[in-house]
């Protein structure tokens, strides 16, 4: 401990306490540290919430390189870490004020480990930033007419349904020739709890103008349905919202205020003359590149070698220059100088609180997890 400028750390995980040392001058990255924690506790497959007690006794999170380094530097010299299983995490414990009265580690631990029965109403769980992942986004606002909205829905291979229906309808456009009634495709229904509804970016009676960069004009309801399903892993739809009130007013927006463009009648939306002009092909330029989209997370077919493990299909040199960004798995880096400290090691029976499965099962679980990331469930 003296020979190497290591930072001894005491870790509490559930009822399990461990102590190990870390090189203070080379703390490494958070990911590595996270892997180390999992390794030390032999819980390679459990999602953790990492917190530390700062000098004021506040329980603060460690979830990125920044606050990790901060935590290391504040250690004096012992750094007290608190690990919680993510699904059991009590986020309310975090914060500067919450724990000022109970500055002792024991008190902290008591807060974290209090039995479930004593809890009040479960608070709304808001993940920490590291857990955030895009579920939907509004893109291309800079190039689209302000009455339009291009929404991207990220399926992430999750089980949550996209959750919307489309229907035929007609919209009236104002053209230099006068009013013109044209057939269109509209969102007809949102499934409660579905992705579309939860994003708040799509609404019933929004007119669908494009699907992944391809105009739907002239296409039948069935064709548009098929296009959307074919793109369901990474669906980008350009809509003209039925309710134009929520649109961003840009540059003092000509007449983006209020209900002028709002459809009064359910099957119909009105295009102003300016929009008709705005719909000229120059505006169909895509800000996102479809190539990039589809070659990233979208298209990973899965190949299982006979009897072997599943490997996602990468891309051969022919399509070089395209990066394959697989969702990165928690990596375990041995060069972390991993060494559990001898002193105070409490390899107690409370290990059981972390429901360990036997080794084989976990390997399998890793494999399955990787598949799930791809949105595929394979019965091995």
């Amino acid at each position: 401990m003296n020979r190497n400028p290591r930072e001894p750390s005491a870790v509490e995980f559930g009822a399990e306490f461990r102590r190990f040392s870390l090189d203070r001058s080379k703390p490494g990255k958070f990911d590595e540290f996270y892997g180390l924690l999992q390794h030390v506790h032999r819980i390679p497959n459990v999602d953790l919430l990492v917190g530390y007690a700062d000098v004021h006794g506040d329980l603060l999170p460690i979830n990125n390189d920044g606050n990790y380094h901060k935590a290391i530097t504040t250690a004096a010299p012992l750094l007290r870490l608190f690990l919680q299983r993510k699904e059991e995490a009590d986020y309310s414990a975090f914060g500067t004020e919450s724990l000022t009265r109970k500055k002792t580690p024991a008190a902290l631990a008591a807060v974290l480990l209090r039995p479930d029965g004593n809890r009040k109403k479960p608070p709304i769980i808001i993940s920490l930033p590291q857990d955030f992942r895009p579920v939907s986004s509004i893109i291309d606002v800079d190039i689209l007419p302000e009455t339009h909205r291009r929404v991207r829905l990220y399926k992430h291979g999750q089980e949550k349904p996209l959750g919307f229906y489309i229907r035929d309808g007609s919209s009236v456009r104002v053209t230099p020739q006068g009013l013109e009634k044209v057939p269109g495709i509209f969102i007809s229904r949102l499934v409660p709890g579905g992705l579309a509804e939860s994003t708040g970016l799509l609404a019933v009676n929004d007119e669908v103008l494009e699907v992944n960069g391809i105009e739907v004009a002239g296409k039948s309801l069935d064709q548009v349905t098929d296009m959307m399903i074919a793109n369901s892993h990474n669906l980008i739809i350009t809509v003209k919202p039925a309710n134009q009130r929520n649109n961003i007013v840009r540059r003092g927006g000509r007449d983006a205020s209020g209900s002028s463009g709002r459809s009064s009648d359910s099957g119909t939306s009105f295009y102003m003359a300016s929009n008709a002009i705005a719909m000229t092909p120059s505006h169909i330029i895509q800000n996102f590149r479809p190539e990039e989209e589809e070659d990233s997370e979208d298209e990973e077919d899965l190949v299982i070698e006979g009897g072997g493990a599943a490997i996602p299909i990468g891309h051969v040199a022919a399509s070089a220059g395209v990066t394959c960004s697989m969702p990165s798995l928690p990596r375990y880096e041995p060069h972390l100088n991993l060494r559990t400290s001898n002193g105070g090691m409490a390899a107690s029976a409370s290990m059981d609180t972390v429901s360990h499965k036997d080794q084989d099962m976990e390997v399998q679980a890793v494999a399955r997890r990787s598949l799930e990331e791809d949105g595929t469930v394979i019965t091995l």
Partner: protein
Amino acid sequence: MMKFRFRRQGNDPQRERIKQELFAFNKTVEHGFPNQPSALAYDPQLQLMAIGTKSGAIKVYGAPGVEFTGLHKDTAAVTQIHFLSGQGRILSLLDDNSLHLWEIGGKEGHSYLEEVRSFSLPGRPGIESTSATRVTVLLLKLNLDLLCVGTEGGGVHFLQLPTFSLLDRSLFHDEVMQSAPEEYKCGKSLGPVEALQEHPQQAEKILIGYSRGLVVLWDLNTRHVDNLFLGKQQLESLVWERSGNTFVSSHSDGGYLVWTVNSSTPCTHQPTTSTIPYGPFPSHGGMPRASYGDRHCLTILQDSTHVTLDFTSRVIDFFTVHCIDQEKEYDDPTSLVVLLEEELVVIDLATPGWPTIPSPYLAPLHSSAITCSYHISNVPSKLWERIITAGQSQSANQTHGVGDWPICGGRSVAPESKQKELLLTGHEDGTVRFWDASGVSLQPLYKLSTANIFQTDCDHNDSLTQAGEEEWPPFRKVGCFDPYSDDPRLGIQKICLCKYSGKLVVAGTAGQVIVMYLSDEKSDHMIDVATVDLLQDREGFTWKGHDRLPPKTGSVVFAPGFQPVVLVQCIPPAAVTAVTLHAEWNLIAFGTSHGFGLFDYHRRAPVLARCTLHPNDSLAMEGPLSRVKSLKKSLRQSFRRIRKSRVSGKKRAVQEANAQLAEQDAEMAPVQRRIEARSADDSLSGVVRCLCFADTFLRDGTHHGPTMWAGTNSGSVYAYALEVPSQEKFSEQSVEAVLGKEIQLMHRAPVVSIAVLDGRGNPLPEPYEVSRDLAKAPDMQGSHSVLIASEEQFKVFMLPKVSAKTKFKLTAHEGCRVRKVALVTFTSVSSEEYCENGLVCLTNLGDIHVFSVPALRPQVRYDCIRKEDISGIASCVFTKTGQAGQVAGGSVLSPGFYLISPSEYERFSLSARVITEPLCQVDVDRLHDLTVLRYSKLSHCLHLQFEHNEVFSLSSPFLESPNSSADLTLDTTGELTVEDVKDFLVYVLHLDTLYVSCGRAVYEGAVNDS
């Protein structure tokens, strides 16, 4: 980037030119029997037959290979067709009351049919409603320059031919009524014109019959009523006696009157004879109407010979082919041609026993419903001859001594096709029919029945019906249309034929996979059965569908032709969804909704069975087929019922109105579509959609070997490496299969097709092609790739790593889904040396796309089938591959077929090079040569009858000679409706051959032969 790629390609003139030389889309010819025929006509001079359909098509047939098709602009039913005999002109009347004139024209040495004129009667301003000008009857004058048109309003209009100019001398009611005696007028209208007949001797006179019963002999030149015949019974038809001295009128009460024309008495009140022969004949051994009410019959009487042809479907019309020389005493009809709703039957009247003459065209493809089709091009002549021989031995008894095909106008000038093509159709009754698809007319070659392998109760039924038919009338079943399958499990689902070895795999609805080989000898053996359990001990699944078909036990006799080697029975017995054959390896692969299996038919041993069922898939165990079938059955029954109870005009109008209302309702309710990613839990995800064998690199890049690939409905692909023993060790060593790769396509769309490409990107040759020097050996140096086509996209993966190389996301781009794909070799028109591989794809929108292989770049797109025509799209078959043709020096065909109706295939071609289409020539004489003898059916008949004093006494609205001496009586009993009587066609040709046809047979009574 994608857009840019397209643009660059589209703008390259060099590439555009090559594409034009490679690809061209043509619908070339329709094979089969026209759907819903509604009219028939024959030109005895040109020997051409014309058939009109309810969809407004006119099809003209002559000698085999001679055929023309014309389509009216409006899809209205063709109600009447008349040939302007000898002129190559056809007059058609449509349901929408329009008249059309068609001409067979000539261009570049071959003839074609085109519409030259059309005409609709103008309404009479102010007086008549539109229905008043509805055409009821047409009379084509013998010299073909005048058309008399009778209307519902009672007017007769005269049109000059061929110009269709309306002559200003229409004859209306009022003019006729002026001549009628006061007591006849009684304020009632004369009703529609029901009959028009030209005077057999005096061309300027026509006989006009009105519905109310009045008959007028009208002189066209003097515009004067020569005679009035004051009939009082509702009129149905008129027939002249040849001398012009008497005529016969038939009436709605089933009676008929004979009138004498006497120039001295302009107004005849009473007919010479009057017969109302209806009456019950219960004492005469009459048969209960209920037993025969649904029969479709036509009776031929000659002397004492009496045959009642019992047809399979409704009689539309008929004619006889006979001597047209009027100087001859007798007509000597050589054959009788009967157009039925579902087939054409030709009876050879010159041969004793009146056998049927097999038709060289208008093949009743749908005699049993078509369940699948399979096309093979470039059939080796050896196999071809053996199939023909097998077929000839089948039909030896039927065709022996039968006369030649009687309709033989025109001549085919299409070049003899260089290669032989086979079309195989699988049917609901378990038969596989082999058709010669090399030329324009599809001809039956051989019929394979799989029903005799199983124990069914079909045979039993047949014997029952036979027994009942010994009695009177002497029914004779003719025709082969038999859509009522006794056991739907026999239905053929998939066919695969190896054209080099003559091995055939036929798979059916009850999980039966039959491996067959072509034998030239009759054989007698037991049926070898092997069962393969595709569930592989999966627990929690119980099959709720139909049972398997029990195979026959004991020895079974098989005629020369395809005979079973082994019957592989899938368990559970769900319908087979994919099958493939590798005759060189003695392997078959088959799949159902539960999994797939691999079977070594040489050793008769299963090699592999794999369950593809998803744990949550309960629908797969339902046997959905049984439900579909029962629905189909009930539909059929209701159709039969409809056929039985004729829908009157009024009822029809009500039905149409209801249908319209229903449509409106459908519009009111908004159609919604759910947007959801495909999930692993989708039902029937385990259905095996395609199977393929290939010699390629699966395990590593240096050792190639046999592989087997299977693709499922949920985007899974399984690839197995096979250990196939060398030919000498087939018997000792067993085939081994090891799972090499499993690919889960991310988008989970059903896998439609899998094909392996060699190092140069060419599809691998078929089995035996390399070993028999029929194809170039594939490139085994460069790396192979596998082309996987799903419903949504095409993707090429490099082997053995299965890394994605190229792809095209069709659905994401176009919004259409892949229905059928095939790899086709296209040869350039400019040079036989230049060819390209293409991936041909038919989508759910009915359009055809061609992509380059392996780059998967879109080349061309054509509209092919209407997107609403789901059965057409589902029935489409492409010729598998044509690459053997390259090496053999022949041309490469790239055709496809799809069903345009239950009974017709449309053939199309995608190659700019080879097109199979009818090219024929008909020499026509359009000079108005009045000396040419003309043909008139009914006056002719009567002439013969009267002249020879042959007498028939008939209870139908037929005629009776005043000098009646013979006494053959044919009676029908009550219950006849007006419409039934109307449908009676009575037709006498030969001195004593009589034809009686009922639209629907109502055939009761007895022959009184004293």
